[in-house]
């Protein structure tokens, strides 16, 4: 469903993504790994359309979306879940969810989707009238993910460090939501470096270093390679 061909992108004057090619099919999870500054976030943002690539092509569902603006990519079913959340702080929890559904006009369909979200995240139902800025960090991250998965036509999720700074309970909840997305045959590209989360979700990995993919394969294989984990993830395996 997603094919990246020789993608190059700059962040200001900094040459960050230096020729990345990847494929993600429906029902796939692809973990993008690498140390800080490897270009992971810039890569996700370029796929979403926040950053224009200097070279290369991005195909989504067989369509070349390289020159399509951000909002058109979102309308085609791509969602970006940023690590710094970027909620709409002055809007209520429910309004944040409704922004994600703003192109749906049937009231019943909107209510059904809200009900679905509240089933997945029951805490958000209790908090729905609060402004997003009043939520705790964990609650904000729930909303960040809920808002992206709210739309029934969202098919590809670009998720940046979803469990960063969260308690184990929230992190585990997020892992099970990602597993559900995969079960529903949607595609997930996720920047995450926690070995426990990768083990739980499974799928494929690609390691980025200095803007290039230096290794890729299945998460299962990665977990058996102490050398790769220690070299690129900065995690010491005991």
């Amino acid at each position, binding site marked *: 469903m997603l094919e990246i061909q020789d993608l190059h992108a700059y962040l200001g004057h900094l040459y960050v993504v230096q020729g990345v090619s990847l494929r993600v099919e429906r029902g796939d999870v692809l973990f993008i790994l690498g140390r800080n500054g490897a270009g992971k976030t810039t890569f996700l943002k370029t796929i*979403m359309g*926040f950053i224009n690539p200097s070279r290369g092509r991005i195909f989504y569902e067989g369509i070349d979306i390289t020159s399509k603006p951000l909002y058109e990519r979102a309308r085609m079913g791509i969602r970006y879940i940023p690590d710094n959340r970027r909620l709409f702080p*002055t809007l209520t929890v429910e309004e944040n969810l409704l922004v994600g559904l703003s192109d749906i006009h049937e009231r019943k369909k909107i209510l059904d989707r809200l009900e679905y979200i509240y089933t997945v995240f029951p805490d958000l139902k209790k908090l729905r009238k609060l402004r997003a800025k009043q939520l705790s960090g964990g609650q904000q991250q729930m909303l960040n993910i809920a808002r992206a998965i709210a739309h029934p036509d969202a098919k590809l999720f670009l998720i940046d460090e979803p469990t960063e700074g969260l308690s184990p309970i929230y992190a585990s909840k997020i892992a099970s939501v990602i597993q559900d997305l995969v079960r529903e045959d949607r595609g997930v590209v996720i920047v995450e470096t926690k070995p426990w989360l990768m083990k739980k979700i499974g799928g494929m990995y690609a390691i980025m270093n200095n803007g290039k993919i230096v290794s890729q394969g299945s998460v299962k294989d990665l977990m058996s390679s102490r050398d790769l984990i220690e070299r690129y993830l900065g995690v010491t395996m005991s």
Partner: protein
Amino acid sequence: MALEILVSAIIDGVALGFIFLLLSLGLSVIFGLMRIVNFAHGSMFLWGAYIGYEVSSRTGNLLAGILASASITGLMGFLIEYLLLKRLREPLTQAIITIGLMLLLDRVAWLRWGDITYIWLPPELEGTILLGPTIIYKYRLFVIVVGIVLLIAVYIFFNRTRYGMIIRAGIDDREMIQAFGVNIERVFTGIFVVGSVLAGVAGSILVPWQGVYPTLGINYLLYAFAIVVIGGVGSIGGTMVASLLAGLAQQLSAYYAPYLAEPSIFLLMLAVLMLRPSGLLRV
């Protein structure tokens, strides 16, 4: 005697506050969402006033004047955004373009209408009524009624409609809203048109009270900038509160200390900024 003057001053202040609100709201939302300091906003107010005067005085119908102002300033806003600002999204360039437009539009108005102050009041809204011992001008009460109706409409638009919600979300984060499928360029054009319409309507409503003259636009633009700062830049609720406070400050000083009437809004701004540097209700 003292109480009657106070009541009159408050009524006039509230009436003026509603006119400030119509003018400032567009300026505040345009800045909050589009990050444009729109110097041409006062010219929309000025043109709204002149068009309102022309159509109302010719037809004898105030509503016809208000509707004509709304239509023409809305069209002007659309053309400015669509033909100029949309193509040049750099904030400094946009600000300079709006300064140029202000000079041009105000000059054209002066060429057409000259230095004369025009005023036309519908006969049915002439005169005064007595509220106990207090004399109240009918037209100023009318402005308050119209202001309340428009205030409710604006509140409903921003808080109960999909478009209002998208605008508020866009003020919070105009890049992220696009990641949910919102074409922000269309929202920009829409909000610029709505802001221009509100300014034009405000101008047409002011004419029967204070008349229209060549420097009306720039005078009120400066008030509106101060009001936006008092309220907290981009804050819709803050602009509402600040507009009413500014109207009251100006009219109370006009009654009790006329030499302070002109600078009163700026003094209010200084006082608010000393206590709350980001305005009354920061976004």
